[in-house]
């Protein structure tokens, strides 16, 4: 028996590095294709931030053209943060909760798919949607609200917003392990909307009551929005280091929670 199992081991071919790269690329491509074809995801994650931006940043702004363009620039950063948070939270939490709770993840885990490919695909998809939202907002802002950014500023804003998929995706991952398939969308909304408001994404943070301004420092979207505001030259804070440190900390915390929940799941009825 020992000899037989040894032979069986020897007989199994190895996966080449090229196979592995193709595997990750396909997993990511089909995750994006899958999401693009879900109207409620594709349309709402991109359209809602754009709609809110038109409403708060263009329609309901001061008449004075200087203030108007300033408000539109400010909201470009905060609405961008709002949009990226939605794309990442829904892209991770809801799809993970559904695929985990309804057996699909089991089918994938019974195959030789590396679990890292599955999560990398979700991150790449969230980043691409985030980039789309950022570019969409930039176009609307510059065409309709006279937002003027240097190319380097626009590039920094897009980069910050795409990178923000990492902390938000980590939060979504933890939520995806907490929530059941049917409860995931309301759970995400219950977290997403108050978190956005309290982080100053809809109404500028300096207009919120003092205690909320203090409390916002405990919220990841606040730190993302401050980095985005820095990119467009409108941050009232000092350097970016504190925000980056906070976001790294949040990411590790959320990943830790996700790992604990994943371990709890192992061997139980879910994948």
């Amino acid at each position: 028996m020992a000899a037989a199992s040894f032979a069986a081991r020897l007989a199994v071919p190895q996966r080449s590095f090229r196979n592995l790269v193709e595997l990750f690329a396909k997993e990511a491509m089909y995750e994006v294709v899958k999401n693009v074809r879900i109207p409620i995801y594709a349309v709402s994650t991109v359209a809602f931030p754009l709609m809110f931006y038109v409403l708060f940043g263009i329609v309901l702004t001061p008449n004075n053209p200087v203030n108007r363009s300033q408000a539109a620039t400010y909201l470009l950063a905060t609405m961008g943060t709002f949009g990226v948070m939605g794309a990442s939270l829904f892209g991770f939490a809801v799809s993970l909760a559904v695929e985990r709770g309804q057996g699909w993840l089991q089918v994938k885990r019974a195959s030789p798919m590396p679990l890292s490919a599955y999560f990398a695909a979700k991150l790449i998809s969230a980043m691409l949607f985030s980039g789309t939202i950022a570019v969409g907002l930039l176009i609307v802002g510059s065409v309709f609200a006279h937002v003027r950014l240097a190319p380097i500023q626009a590039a920094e804003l897009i980069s910050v917003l795409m990178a923000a998929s990492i902390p938000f995706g980590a939060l979504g991952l933890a939520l995806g392990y907490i929530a059941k398939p049917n409860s995931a969308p309301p759970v995400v909304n219950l977290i997403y909307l108050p978190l956005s408001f309290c982080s100053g994404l809809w109404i500028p943070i300096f207009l919120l009551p003092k205690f909320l301004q203090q409390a916002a420092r405990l919220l990841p979207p606040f730190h993302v929005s401050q980095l985005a505001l820095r990119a467009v030259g409108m941050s009232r804070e000092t350097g970016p280091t504190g925000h980056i440190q906070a976001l790294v900390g949040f990411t590790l915390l959320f990943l830790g929670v996700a790992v604990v929940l994943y371990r709890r799941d192992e061997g139980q009825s879910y994948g």
Partner: protein
Amino acid sequence: MAAVIVQPPWPATAPKLTVAQANRVSKAYGSVQALREVSLGLRGGELLALLGPNGAGKTTLVRMLLGLASPDSGRISVFGADPRDEIMRYRVGAMLQVARVPETLRVREHIDLFSSYYPNPLPIAETLRIAGLEEIKTRRFGELSGGQRQRVLFGISICGNPDLLFLDEPTVGLDVEARRLMWAQIRALVALGKTVLLTTHYLHEADALADRILVLQHGAIVAEGTPAEIKARTIGKQVRFSSRLSVEEVRTIPGVVSLTADQQKFELQVQAAEPVVRELLLRDSWLSDLEVTTAGLEEAFLALTQNHYSKGVN
């Protein structure tokens, strides 16, 4: 065309060699004991059917053999290794029961993606052909009928050209025609030397496909053998007739295991037909429409599991 699948990417498993093994495996989910000290050995090239009603523990056992759940006690090995080993999964395919599959991907895209997980997959066209998906390859999963969905899951299980296949209730919810088609596909795989473990609660399915049957009931194996042996294990007969006798008068005849009555039509399960028929004719000489038949696998299965149930777990 079939030549493509005949060529194994590595030497096929020698027949009769044990390719997967469960050794005194137990598993509880909370207070529910899903499996109790179950042992089984899957031999290369055979089709083993795990037969049992819903909740018997079939899916739990399959999940363990796939490394998706770990036993509380006992040992599982697949190709001599731990089933959680990613490398071993290159040689294994699985068709599992799944409530929801991503609906916006097309059939061909699902197959393409799963093929990329394996180092030596079948050509996609070949997988589509074997699973009968050519006509619907450009359709989105959400647009498919129940039978077509099962075929996609079947395609996913074979696309990596595995040596060992786990098919968990592959024909559940299929109509007669779709079921026959799936059977033909499964037989074709066995003919190519693949090893298959199939779970089913359809008795005729196990009879039609399996080399060997394990009957699982309340998490324990209660019978094991070829379909013929399983049938032979129940020596019981079925007796049908019409009579004016009361249900009580028939029930008290020695040797009657169980009975159903509708008006004057009776159907009895008996251990041996002759003494019961003799007694029946003594009690009612006008008895008519007498018919004695051998218990099929369906009755065998019922008798086996009921017998075990009434005796309790030893």
